[in-house]
């Protein structure tokens, strides 16, 4: 089979040959033409078939003519120079970077363009006199890189990147290195003449280097410890802050009274390693957003139709969505999203709600019916009247629930903090008891022993165990296409005992239906006629049926008629065919004839008024769901929570294990309440969903996971995004998370061992600075090595999959 030279798809429906290269569609060919006439052929040398087939609907970007909207989008606009930053989800390879950075060769009005690949953004500087923003966007779309412009861009704030951790780490690393140099001489040559002269200078220099480390780099630990104490929680930062403070005060006293060189190297090393752990834990997937709400799904503007009078010509105007008022008439084109609750006025409405409510099959609406916001129009243009403004519509009201205003999922008590409580109490009691004993034995040493205990007991290694284990797992998960928002999610994942699945889009795939035929077999002629009839129709059901049948020959029909919401009728050389709902094809009134389940999707066929049979459309389930449910049902409570009707209930009952509870007809709010009720009964809930209708449940659950077939397209706010191709590995991810928790527990043991050795030195009054300087980095490094090796070992099964 021929592969398209541009996009690499197989050219099975049609092949266009141009300059001895084959293309799958005219769009691909046009892109090639544009590139080759502008000397951008190198695009195809960099990577094989790098292209994206362009999809452009007329009038889609008309709203960019509105100067208000343009002003909102432009980042900089002065004189003739404008700067705009676009999100281009379709960029995926080095060819894309190359061509996007060479846009100026296509049109000279573009001055420069700069790609940020991890974020999938492009920053274009162009001369607004020679090219308008609309033309620019259309140009990008025509070469396959359509920018994503949504309602979210409307309220875009200047991006603030928090780089404080890098600064803190830089300061600590800089000071650590210098202090190491300065403290070294005293470890080896204690009574040398020159050293005696210089050591005071060295010590005060070390003190100077430590100041910014304690007061800037380490400030986070003091703040967090203070906040913890305020809310009466002994978090891990309490003993750490205590350790840092003790190290600093003891060392300063040491050098002031000339008792010794102090522990400045240990102090700087401690802060540096702790921050390194924090830095490692912060793995971000810049191209993904885990915070999206309906705003990034909705368009920025719509076409409003203004009628001054009945006999006046119709006037079209592009308006921002927020400017829509009740009573406005708006135009919704094919494949556009309905931005507000409306009433249908004109046109054939076929609305796909699968993303919003979970209904798998598009719904037909007739004039005068209510259309809820969020649906996608599937056939042609319609005219609707707005009855509720955007913020008050049925769908967007979900976001007024308090779940969405809560800051994170803070109620989770992580493992490190739960151990830290016992740890802190133990350390403090050891310190006090040994001090009391030393007060009897040798009061002059009591202060030294007290501070020494606090110094060696500083839980550096414990604080590093979780960040490095979770950070490693986070990266391993990412390589396996499960992208988590933060490392903490893994700990919550391990605690989950109830898993809830959404049906439409999660258990089922979005694109494919399983179609089966029931009835009298069609003759070859009838089949040919059926194919030709289906081809002429734009209804999604006809289109998917046509794709399945793989027609080879197409007839030119003598007669063709489509009745929206009912069916189609066609004839060829005296042969008649009717395709559609049962009542339509059989000319009978509803309720009569063969028994019919209203919840099933069927397409009936009659040929020359003789009933033949029907095609049954069923959701096609993802591969591996049997396996997942079987494996998970042993360890977790499972449920299916769907917004769809009960049409698939019978089938699911037979397919899934008995222990799985099935719930249908759940509205977005109901889903949220369902999860909440389970949590109130003490369950830790993981919600696996995909669409806007799951958004509430995803936010409420302990872990909200979104299944996505294309991670670049919109997905609602969640804790993690899982690529649909790895859906069947969910059990593995869950298992791996609990194994990660065991690794953390083992590292706690290991680091406690180091603490015990250190305490041995401390309580006997032998803690020399050099001992602390060896013990502290040694324990930290061995924890890092230990966790890295073991996370790799436990995840080798998953990793083996990537290689194969």
């Amino acid at each position, binding site marked *: 089979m021929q592969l398209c030279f541009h996009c690499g798809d197989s050219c099975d429906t049609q092949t266009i040959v141009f300059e001895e290269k084959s293309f799958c569609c005219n769009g691909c060919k046009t892109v090639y033409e544009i590139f080759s*006439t*502008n*000397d951008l052929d190198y695009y195809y040398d960099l990577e094989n078939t790098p292209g994206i087939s362009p999809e452009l609907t007329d009038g889609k970007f008309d709203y960019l003519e509105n100067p208000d909207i343009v002003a909102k989008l432009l980042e900089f606009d002065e004189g003739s120079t404008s700067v705009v930053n676009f999100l281009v989800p379709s960029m995926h390879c080095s060819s894309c970077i190359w061509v996007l950075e060479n846009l100026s060769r296509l*049109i*000279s009005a573009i001055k420069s363009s700069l790609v940020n*690949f*991890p974020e999938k953004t492009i920053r274009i500087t162009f001369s607004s006199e020679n090219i308008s923003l609309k*033309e620019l966007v*259309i140009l990008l779309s025509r070469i396959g890189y359509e920018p994503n412009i949504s309602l979210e861009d409307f309220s875009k704030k200047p991006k603030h990147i928090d780089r404080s951790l890098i600064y803190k780490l*830089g300061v600590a690393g800089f000071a650590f290195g210098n202090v190491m140099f300065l403290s070294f001489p005293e470890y080896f040559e204690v009574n040398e003449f020159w050293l005696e002269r210089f050591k005071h200078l060295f010590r005060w220099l070390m003190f100077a280097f430590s100041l910014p480390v304690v007061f800037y780099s380490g400030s986070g630990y003091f703040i967090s410890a203070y906040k913890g104490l305020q809310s009466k929680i002994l978090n891990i930062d309490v003993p750490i802050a205590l350790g840092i403070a003790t190290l600093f005060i003891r060392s300063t006293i040491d050098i002031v009274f000339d008792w010794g060189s102090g522990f400045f190297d240990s102090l700087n090393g401690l802060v540096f390693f702790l921050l390194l752990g924090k830095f490692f834990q912060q793995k971000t997937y810049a191209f993904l957003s885990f915070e999206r709400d309906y705003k990034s799904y909705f368009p920025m503007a719509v076409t409003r139709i203004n009628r001054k009078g009945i006999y006046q010509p119709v006037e079209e105007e592009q308006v921002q969505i927020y400017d829509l008022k009740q009573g406005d008439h708006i135009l919704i084109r094919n494949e556009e999203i309905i931005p507000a609750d409306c009433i249908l006025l004109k046109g054939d409405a076929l609305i796909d709600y699968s993303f919003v409510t979970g209904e798998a099959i598009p719904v037909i609406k007739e004039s005068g019916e209510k259309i809820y916001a969020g649906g996608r129009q599937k056939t042609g243009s319609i005219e609707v009247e707005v009855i509720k403004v955007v913020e008050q519509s049925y769908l967007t009201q979900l976001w007024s629930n308090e779940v969405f205003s809560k800051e994170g999922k803070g109620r989770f008590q992580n493992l490190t903090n739960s151990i830290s409580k016992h740890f802190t109490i133990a350390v403090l009691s050891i310190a006090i008891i040994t001090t009391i004993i030393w007060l009897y034995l040798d009061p002059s040493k009591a202060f030294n022993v007290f501070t020494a205990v606090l110094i060696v007991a500083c839980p550096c290694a414990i604080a590093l165990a979780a960040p490095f284990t979770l950070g490693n797992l986070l990266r391993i998960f990412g390589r396996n296409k499960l992208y988590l928002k933060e490392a903490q999610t893994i700990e919550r994942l391990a605690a989950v005992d109830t898993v809830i699945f959404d049906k439409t889009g999660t258990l089922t795939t979005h694109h494919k239906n399983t179609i089966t035929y029931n009835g009298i077999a069609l003759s070859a002629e009838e089949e040919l006629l059926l194919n030709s009839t289906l081809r002429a129709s734009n209804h999604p059901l006809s289109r998917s049926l046509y794709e399945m049948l793989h027609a080879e020959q197409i007839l030119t029909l003598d007669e063709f008629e489509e009745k929206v919401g009912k069916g189609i009728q066609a004839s060829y050389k005296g042969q008649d065919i009717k395709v559609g709902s049962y009542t339509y094809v059989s000319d009978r009134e509803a309720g009569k004839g063969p028994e019919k389940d209203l919840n099933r999707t069927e397409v009936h066929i009659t040929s020359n008024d003789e009933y033949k049979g029907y095609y049954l459309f069923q959701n096609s389930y993802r591969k591996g769901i049997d396996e997942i449910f079987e494996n998970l049902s042993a360890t977790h409570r499972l449920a299916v929570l769907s917004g769809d009707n009960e049409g698939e209930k019978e089938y699911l009952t037979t397919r899934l294990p008995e222990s799985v509870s099935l719930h249908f007809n759940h509205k977005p709010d109901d889903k949220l309440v369902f999860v909440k009720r389970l949590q109130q009964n003490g369950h830790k809930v993981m919600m696996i969903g995909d669409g806007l209708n799951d958004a509430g449940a995803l936010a409420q659950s302990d872990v909200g996971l979104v299944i996505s077939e294309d991670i670049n397209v919109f997905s609602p706010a969640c804790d993690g995004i899982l690529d649909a191709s790895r859906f069947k590995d969910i059990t593995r991810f869950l298992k791996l998370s609990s194994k990660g928790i065991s690794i953390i527990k083992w590292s706690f043991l290991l680091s406690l061992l180091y603490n015990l050795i250190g305490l041995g030195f401390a309580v006997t009054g032998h803690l020399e600075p050099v001992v602390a300087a060896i013990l502290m980095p040694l324990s930290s490094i061995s924890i890092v090595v230990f966790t890295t090796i073991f996370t790799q070992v436990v995840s080798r099964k998953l990793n083996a999959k990537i290689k194969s």
Partner: protein
Amino acid sequence: MSIIYMLLAISVCVAIVFFIAFIVSVRKGQYDDTYTPSVRMLFEDELLDISETETDDPSDNKPINLNQK
């Protein structure tokens, strides 16, 4: 041996200069995107190559028609 004061001062100054250079580069956003530059640097030769062979008259290079369907 008092040269050690001088040496110390120099070494600390050099260290501080590099430290400031690091802070400045972070602030300018050099570490925000660590991937694209690694790909971009491989293009440079190609760009030069084209601009040398290109005809001098840019108007010869017909700009694409935006309204073309």
